[in-house]
């Protein structure tokens, strides 16, 4: 057999010339090599593509198998854990492998943490399915009880449960994720893709928030909402770099138990709610007047006669009924003088500065729940008039704070951020350094002599401005005695070197014993700010203690 094969081969070889044979062989080898190399190149390209260019996608595909997602931890600026994912077990069934669905349902429903017998029976009824969840995130005790039943077709799968350690405290910032680990609100939603990780426990998201400050502001706000019988309230503390150290909106909710939360509690007043800012907007009015050079601190404006605007009359709350200097108009919060200051610099200048301040744009912050400002379609004379004292435009508190912080921060734009070291360093100037210094002096005078007295702290150069705005209801602001207010305090410390800015708002506070029948910001929002300042200053900085009178402004004030 062997001999015949070799003999045949020898005959075949003889039948062709040696060179021709070699030529054919060489061609075949080359073709085979080219074919092999092409396959190799294709495989290499696909591998490189998967590993290098689509690496994240591949990780996600691997992570999302069976819908199980592990999310990265979220910490505050000091490394305190705010949200984490812990490993749990989830119980599932393969209905096609369950022998008696009714019996299994009856047995499982005996465990009180599991769904009712009917629910389980319904899940197990479709024998064509191979996977149905029985219960997610069961405790080790429940897992043991289920395993003891020994029902074929019932198994467990490793799962991750998102835990929000401080409950309500950060609910409006961190938000929450659904049972499958996908962010549905707040930071969890905004950074959903970045928070989904495979097996990197070191990966974490560090926020600019400070647990201690957040806790203090939450506690003080809650206490004062009860004290002033308000419907709710909110506060933000921001550094001059734009990093938000605390952001509290009340009422709030427990993200560990969202199912039982009324939807109103999930509303973030600080970023989604837009409100007319009231007298706090006079800071912008004065800044425009000073920066455009149309008025000085001693410029006089007649605040004796109320101003007619259509059906409405613009008056002053406890007005002085005389001509006021610009400094007095600001410190005594005169609406009439504010209108006259605005008419002095004109509609075009006002609109130009509003654009420069960023009033007309939506504020940028790392949350999906951000409300756009409500601006009139046409910037008319009436708009210019009402905007001068804080009506006719509506902004979110974080938007208002960022604008006022920018004016007070030596005139350099401050962009709010919720990330540590996430501040956008800009040298964009919105008002001159001199204007900024005078505005801070004026705001300091409000604390020393004006409506913000109750926000003052001995030994600290706090500056600020109060504002009381009537809430719109039934297409109007209500009638006397039937009005709801939003009271605001916005300010910061210290005047010489502004490092921190605070905004406090109370929704519909009521007059209480000790406020002499008043429910304006000076009687409620300012004391809340005082309580907050008093507790956070010792924690934040010990190098800010100084107290100076606003000398530059005081000489233009007449208290009669």
């Amino acid at each position, binding site marked *: 057999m062997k001999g015949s094969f070799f003999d045949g081969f020898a005959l075949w070889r003889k039948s062709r010339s040696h060179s021709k044979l070699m030529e054919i062989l060489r061609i075949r080898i080359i073709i085979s090599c080219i074919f092999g190399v092409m396959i190799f190149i294709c495989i290499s390209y696909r591998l490189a593509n998967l590993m290098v260019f689509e690496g994240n996608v591949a990780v996600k595909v691997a992570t999302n198998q069976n819908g199980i997602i592990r999310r990265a931890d979220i910490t505050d600026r000091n490394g*305190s*854990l*705010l949200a984490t994912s812990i490993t749990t077990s989830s119980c599932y069934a393969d209905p096609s492998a369950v022998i008696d669905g009714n019996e299994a349902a009856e047995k499982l429903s005996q465990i009180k943490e599991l769904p009712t017998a009917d629910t389980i029976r319904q899940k197990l009824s479709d024998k064509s399915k191979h996977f149905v969840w029985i219960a997610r995130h069961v405790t080790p005790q429940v897992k043991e009880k289920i395993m003891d039943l020994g029902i074929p077709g019932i198994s467990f799968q490793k799962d991750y449960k998102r835990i929000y350690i401080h409950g309500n405290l950060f609910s409006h910032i961190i938000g929450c994720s659904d049972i499958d680990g996908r962010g549905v609100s707040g930071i969890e939603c905004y950074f959903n893709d970045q928070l989904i990780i495979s097996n990197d426990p070191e990966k974490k998201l560090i926020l600019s928030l400070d647990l*201690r400050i957040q806790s203090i502001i939450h506690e003080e706000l809650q206490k004062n909402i009860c004290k002033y019988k308000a419907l709710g309230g909110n506060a933000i503390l921001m550094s001059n770099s734009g990093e938000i150290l605390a952001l509290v909106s009340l009422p709030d909710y427990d993200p560990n138990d969202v199912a039982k939360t009324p939807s109103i509690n999930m509303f973030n007043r600080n970023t989604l709610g837009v409100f007319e800012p009231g007298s706090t907007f006079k800071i912008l009015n004065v800044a425009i007047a000073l920066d455009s050079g149309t008025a000085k601190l001693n410029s006089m404006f007649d605040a004796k006669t109320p101003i007619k605007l259509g059906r409405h009359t613009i008056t002053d709350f406890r007005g002085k009924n005389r001509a006021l200097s610009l400094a007095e108009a600001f410190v005594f919060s005169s609406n009439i003088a504010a209108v006259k200051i605005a008419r002095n610099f004109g509609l075009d200048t006002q609109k130009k500065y509003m654009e420069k301040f960023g009033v007309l744009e939506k504020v940028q912050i790392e949350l999906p729940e951000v409300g756009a400002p409500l601006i009139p379609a046409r910037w008319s004379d009436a708009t210019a008039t009402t905007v001068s004292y804080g009506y006719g435009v509506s902004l979110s508190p974080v938007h208002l704070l960022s604008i006022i912080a920018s004016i007070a921060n030596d005139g350099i734009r401050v962009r709010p951020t919720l990330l540590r070291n996430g501040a956008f360093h800009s040298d964009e100037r919105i008002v001159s350094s001199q204007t900024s210094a005078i505005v801070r002096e004026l705001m300091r005078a409000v604390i020393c002599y004006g409506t913000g007295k109750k926000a003052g702290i001995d030994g600290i150069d706090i500056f600020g401005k109060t504002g009381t705005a009537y809430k719109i209801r039934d297409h109007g602001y209500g009638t006397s005695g039937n009005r709801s207010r939003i009271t605001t305090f916005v300010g910061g410390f210290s005047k010489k070197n502004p490092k921190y800015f605070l905004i406090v708002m109370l929704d519909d506070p009521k007059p209480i014993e000790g406020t002499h029948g008043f429910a304006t910001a000076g009687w409620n929002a300012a004391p809340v700010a005082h309580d907050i300042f008093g507790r956070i200053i*010792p924690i934040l900085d*010990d190098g*800010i203690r*100084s107290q100076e009178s606003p000398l530059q402004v005081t000489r233009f004030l007449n208290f009669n």
Partner: protein
Amino acid sequence: MNKSLLISLFLIVILGGAVSRVKYEVLFLRKKSQSIQGEIEKCLDDIVVFSAEWSYLNDPNRLKKLCQKHLKEMVPMENCQLISHEDLMNNQYEELYNETKEKSLNSFLNKVLEG
């Protein structure tokens, strides 16, 4: 030809044996690696739980309640207790500083003498 065939067969047997050994070694190591990986994962899960517990135990409200219960004589620091370096260097505080220093020294000496 026969010689080369024998050498080839011998090499195939040797290589086959080596590949088989490598395969079983890989299987063994993979099993070991999976077991170590499982242990690492368990440790990491435990770390996550402990971190969460630690953070929960350090909740400011909880700490406040504990302080109110166990450190009744201590109160939070107030602004008036803080002083800037510049103010400290001012003369107005020098007297206060000396007085406090003297008081502290006296109280310390009294304690030593009583002891």
